[in-house]
């Protein structure tokens, strides 16, 4: 490539010999990036190659058991709608539980995590022990796998014989565990967001006479949440997926229903069905996250033009 560099490169050398400075090169030794039509056809070719490779592997003879066991359309449909006569629970119906449980938990997590985050950031001497507790809690809840907490609470609490506390439905324990774990993560996200707001903003607000509380609510948090919105939505998508762990407690949500269908029919296409259902929710959610970020960026510019 160096040989193909325009003449200027050597022209530069001639000039520099006059001043005595060493010659400079302004040209990359790498191949130039493909642009325009060349770029488009290059990406078309690579797409065909990748898709073709996947199709080839899946359609090969040796992949037959996989196709039959995981990609059987009839079995997928059967798992989706269920068949009471065979004892197959509907994965679709079970998925509703995943959806509303994640929504309910997310709502609680957003509120509680904000409390934990502000607790960790306030400086009052009275709150010192609570601050210690909040730190211990986030360390613990983030350090233990969700599934272990699920097993602990889901099987441990009922065996405590604590009256009504021990006799709740597994869904309640599952919801508690998800809120317990995710509040810790989300509180750290909030905390990072709050710390990302410049101290000068706080000083400007306090100089107007705003109380620390009003400053937090009207000045710091709106900026903090905006800064960490992608992370918050990311955690929400993660929470949505982790509702699958509820299956360990024998709750008939999507994954457990798929397990049942698989056990009855000796076919795992129900898992594929469950995966598709999760994707149907999480992919729009992540797209929406990107959209919100883009809108937030342009809104200020657009709003100003009116």
């Amino acid at each position, binding site marked *: 490539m160096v040989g193909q560099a325009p003449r200027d490169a050597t022209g530069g050398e001639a000039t520099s010999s006059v001043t005595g400075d060493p010659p400079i090169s302004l040209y990359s030794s790498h191949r130039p990036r493909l642009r325009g039509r060349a770029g488009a056809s290059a990406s078309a070719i690579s797409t065909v190659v990748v898709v073709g490779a996947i199709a080839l592997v899946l359609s090969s003879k040796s992949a037959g058991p996989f196709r039959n066991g995981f990609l059987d359309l009839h079995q997928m449909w059967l798992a989706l709608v269920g068949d009471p006569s065979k004892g197959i629970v509907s994965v679709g119906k079970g998925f509703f539980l995943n959806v509303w449980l994640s929504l309910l938990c997310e709502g609680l997590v957003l509120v509680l995590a904000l409390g934990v985050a502000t607790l960790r950031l306030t400086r009052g001497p009275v709150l010192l022990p609570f601050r210690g507790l909040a730190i211990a809690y986030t360390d613990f809840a983030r350090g233990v796998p969700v599934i272990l907490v699920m097993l602990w609470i889901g099987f441990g609490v009922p065996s405590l014989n604590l009256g009504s506390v021990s006799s709740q439905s597994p869904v309640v324990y599952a919801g508690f565990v998800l809120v317990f774990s995710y509040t810790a993560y989300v509180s750290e996200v909030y905390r990072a967001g709050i710390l990302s707001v410049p101290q*000068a*903003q706080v*000083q*400007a*607000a*306090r*100089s*107007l*006479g*705003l*109380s620390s509380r*009003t400053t937090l609510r*009207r*000045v710091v948090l*709106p*900026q903090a949440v*905006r800064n960490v919105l992608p992370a918050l939505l990311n955690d929400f998508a993660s929470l949505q997926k982790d509702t699958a762990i509820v299956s360990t407690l024998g709750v008939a949500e999507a994954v457990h229903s798929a397990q049942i269908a698989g056990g009855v029919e000796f076919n795992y296409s129900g898992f594929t069905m469950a995966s598709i259902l999760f994707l149907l929710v999480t992919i729009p959610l992540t797209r929406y996250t990107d959209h919100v970020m883009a809108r937030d960026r342009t809104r*200020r*510019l657009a*709003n*100003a033009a*009116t």
Partner: protein
Amino acid sequence: MTRVPGAPIVLRTTAVRKSFGDLEVLQGIDLAIAAHEVVCLIGSSGSGKSTFLRCCNLLERIDSGTIELFGHDLAHERIDENQVRRHIGMVFQSFNLFPHLSVLDNVTLGPRRVLGEERRGAERRALELLARIGLADKAAEYPDRLSGGQQQRVAIVRSLAMEPRLLLLDEITSALDPELVSEVLELVGELAHQGMTMLIATHEMGFAREVADSVCFLEGGSIVESGPPERIFEDPTEPATRRFLQRIIAAGRL
């Protein structure tokens, strides 16, 4: 603008000292500002001007000495710092407008959340103030769409919306492009003309000379020399003041 005889003392500081660690930033500041008076603090960076201003509205706590606002000792245990600050406006070098709020909401935040004004009344008053600085048409815009000079004028209006008894201006033109300085200084000049009581830390000597009733030269955390601007700028008695002004002149800033 001119001293009103018998005007009450708005702010009086006595032997104010403040240290950050081992560094004593303020080494006993005595200062009094009467109502409608404009006092300019000059001196090189690090002389304690900003810290002193920040002590006056309790953003920083002083180590010793007293600060009185209308005769009330701000160190009194029952002093509510939010009540103090609602009467003292502060404008910062870096504007510090709230980027998530429109210009209008920036201006109405204080009146609504501190003074408890209704949205409609607060917005009407804010628009009047913005009209006075010629920025009423920018009310719906967000700060990042404004020039530095416009942002700083909005920041001044944000303070004015609280109807402060004292305005603290902390090097408010230092972060501006040179061509935007005058629009901000003109606004401050108007405020001085209207009788606003102001304590101004500034590097703009020409402006200080024009607008100040009294100029204080700070060095190393002390007021070395103070007096009417004509005397400080034309006939300073302290060698330190002379040296400082000579450096300013050499830099072409006076």
